């Protein structure tokens, strides 16, 4: 579990304290059995900062000590009635603090969601009876449609995102990085499964998917783990002379809710990377994958298993044509789109009406410039890979090689030779074949319209 206040080592220490204080008996479950530690954040949010810091220190220590040592420490703490002054006070504070923190979730009868064992209240015979009260009509939570919603369903999605903004922000960058680490571990664990889904939706080769989607994503998440806290930390800056005596700093704040729209060429990478980028900075995320490669359910499942609460990241399925305008009109605080210039232009125009900042990563007709001092076989391999990786469906793929006159013929000859050796499309029903067919159809229609 991910705790906002305790590191995983400190949670281990608390579990060990629980093992010693509440080892369980023939009637009572052990502290660790019940999984009640899952509820510590709700308890710890009420503590004073210095009390919480003290508990963190103690639990860090306990994580490293064998259980008999911990039992010895508790025995020493129990000697406090005989000890005078500040020493006795210190021991009392420690005893009350640690016991309070461990007993509170256990005796509140709280457990892990899947716990099936004996209840603590049952074991101690605690069964106060309360009269049944007439059910109170709680205001029904408006339902949110995430799977092919209509434009009228979009505002509810943004309401949910807005409602969790402050919670995400309050975790702090270091807190949010904990979720990133859990996500990274989950992706590493389930990479074969992820590759299966990506291949099923895109039809790309497994090697392409592994190198670009899995490796690329893992590299990115590692970068966040190492850099995010440092990059987003407050920066002390010089104070202008006219304000001498004051202190100045630059600090980073989340924008609020960020809308991400991703394409079909690297559906996994272009989901996880921008989502985590927006999230680590403290934003709630509304993410719309491409209808061609929805990777249905995969992103939600990975995030949920990594501990992300519901609504922090919402994945909305639907076509840009139908809900794109509504998504922009929902007024996210920023829009990040990876796609075609045509769509990018449209989104930017619509966002401009609401003065929403927009970041666009668009396809282009990227050149490759080859000078005459290159190693020709190596350059040709580079050109081929750059052009045809992911069957050329990369925003930065090589589309216009410019070769210096002197080596033009040699370069072209080698290129042609290797091109003819490229294996054909692996599967007749390859997804990209379909995608390209669709793109060609769209182009054809536009050309016809121009005529």
């Amino acid at each position, binding site marked *: 579990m991910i705790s906002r206040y305790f590191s995983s080592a400190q949670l281990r220490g608390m579990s060990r304290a629980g093992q010693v204080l*509440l080892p369980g*008996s023939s009637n009572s479950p052990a502290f660790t059995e019940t999984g009640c530690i899952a509820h510590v954040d709700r308890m710890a949010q009420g503590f004073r900062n210095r009390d919480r810091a003290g508990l963190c220190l103690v639990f860090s220590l306990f994580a490293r000590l064998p259980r008999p040592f911990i039992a010895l420490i508790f025995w020493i703490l129990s000697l406090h009635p005989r000890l005078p002054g500040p020493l*006795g006070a*210190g021991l009392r504070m420690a005893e009350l603090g640690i016991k309070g923190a461990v007993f509170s979730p256990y005796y509140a009868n709280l457990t892990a969601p899947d716990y099936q064992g004996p209840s603590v209240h049952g*074991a*101690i015979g605690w069964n106060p009876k309360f009269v049944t009260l007439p059910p109170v009509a709680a205001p029904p939570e408006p339902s949110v449609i995430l799977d092919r919603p209509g434009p009228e369903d979009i505002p509810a999605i943004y309401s949910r995102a807005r409602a969790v903004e402050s919670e995400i922000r309050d975790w702090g960058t270091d807190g949010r990085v904990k979720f990133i680490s859990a996500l990274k571990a989950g992706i590493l664990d389930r990479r074969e499964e992820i590759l299966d889904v990506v291949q099923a939706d895109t039809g790309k080769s497994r090697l392409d998917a592994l190198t670009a989607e899995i490796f690329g994503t893992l590299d990115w998440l590692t970068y966040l783990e190492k850099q995010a806290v440092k990059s987003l930390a407050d920066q002390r800056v010089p104070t202008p002379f006219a304000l001498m005596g004051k202190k100045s700093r630059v600090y980073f704040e989340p924008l609020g809710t960020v809308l991400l729209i991703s394409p079909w060429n690297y559906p996994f990478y272009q989901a996880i990377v921008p989502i985590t980028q927006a999230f680590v900075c403290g934003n709630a995320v509304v993410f719309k994958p491409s209808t061609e490669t929805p990777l249905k359910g995969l992103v939600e499942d990975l995030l949920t298993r990594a501990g992300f609460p519901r609504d922090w990241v919402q994945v909305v399925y639907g076509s840009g044509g139908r809900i794109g305008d509504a998504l922009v009109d929902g007024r996210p605080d920023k829009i990040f789109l990876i796609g075609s210039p045509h769509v990018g232009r449209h989104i930017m125009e619509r966002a401009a009406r609401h003065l929403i900042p927009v970041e666009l990563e668009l396809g282009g007709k990227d050149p490759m410039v080859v000078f005459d001092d290159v190693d020709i076989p190596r350059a040709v391999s580079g050109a081929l890979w750059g052009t045809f990786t992911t069957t050329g469906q990369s925003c930065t793929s090589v589309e216009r090689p410019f070769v210096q006159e002197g080596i033009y013929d040699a370069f072209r000859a080698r290129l042609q030779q290797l091109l003819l050796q490229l294996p054909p499309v692996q599967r007749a029903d390859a997804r990209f074949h379909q995608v390209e067919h669709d793109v060609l159809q769209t182009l054809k229609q536009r050309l016809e319209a121009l005529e």
Partner: protein
Amino acid sequence: MKVYDFLFVGAGISGPFIAKELCGAGAQCLMVEAGRLYHRHTYPRNSLDGNANLYWAGGMELGADAKIAFLRPKVVGGGSIVNQALVDRFDAEAWAGWQAASGVDWFNAQDMAPWYDAAESEIEIREIPPAFSNENARIFDQGFKALGFSNAPLRRAQADCRLEEGNCCIECLNGCRLGSKQSTPETVLKTALENGLTLVPRVEAREIRFHRDGRVELRGRDARGGLTVHWGRNLVLGAGSVGNSALLLRSGLGPKPLWKRLLGRGEAGLPVGRGFYCHPQFMSFGIYDRPIKSHMGAFQAFKSDDTGFRRQGFKLENVYAGPEGIAVLLPGFGKRHHKYMEKLDHFACMEVCTRDAKPGKITLDGRGEPCIHKPLRRDDRARYLKGRAIITEIFKTTGAREIIHGRFGIGLHLMGGCAMGTDPAQSVVDLEFRLHGRDNVFIADSSIFPNAPGINPSLTIMALSKRAAQSILRRHS
């Protein structure tokens, strides 16, 4: 930037009682409260959430020597949400002690009687019928009779706890879901809100500033840690003993440090934070061979009503607590702990409530947070031990197999720090409930208690607040 007629700090018992009168007379009032606002159906349903959300420091506020745990409520409704709603008028003994300490002539039963009547008119009061005594209460009663001491049934501010349906009211320590406990949100606060009171929960008052044009600036901290500012002409402090003391100390209205006094600089400070009392309470458990089930039904039914006890400075009550509280009071850990806790339904429980004679004090730490110094000196400890000895006798007489005395004391009645009195060198508020030397700051909650009365404070807080409201209205009509 609205300037209210009255700003209130704290939505506990005193604030709402006064606000009801002032809003009823048409005053524009704003009340800030550090805690959350709950409704009947939103009170926390388990003790973990209850402790985290209804108390300061998550229910773990300790004194400097950590011998006493203070359960200081932090919620709209304050003490009236988490208390046991026991209502008792002061006896002659308590008033005499107050008069001697403060010089206030109307501290007597006769002058205060109409104010008690006024307070009682706002709430429903019931006596727990003996028929609903649970086994824990019966043991208390039997023991008293066997040893020749007098006891009396408890009066509670409740409408209908539905005991005849078998309801177990121990959950009311986390807020009453039945609407039976006469907490201020059910009574006077509701009326005040209907009469136009603006309530601002989740704002902690941090500092008061006075401006030359007579306005009072109340600077607070909201739930996100941001600064909030409210303006008013008058201020009513109802944040309790610790809250009021801390606020006044942070605002520079407390005692002046020694070096300033030696240099004779500025006005003499007020003894804010001095004279803190808390009726230290200690629970003891008797373990019996037969089931007792102290959590069933009305879990408090009797108090001691013995002149001998009163003279010796303590009283006894039958009482109980939730398992997480009892767990912390028991000695040992591990298997031994489980052995005791598994016998919980064989536990009877009683507490000694000591009338502490030696005051403590409230100071500020480096971050401006209150630090409570309440050492248990010899005399007060002797009172506790005397009461404890009687409890031991009661348990023995009624057949307990084993007796355990709780390892920690608790402080629920937080009193003093802004004592009322005639002498500005020895007290903080005057007979008209005003801060000495100022005519626009009023206090009428338990912080004005000059010493420990040895009786539950809540009804007296209500009565004093009623009197204060009238005093305020008379001056500001």
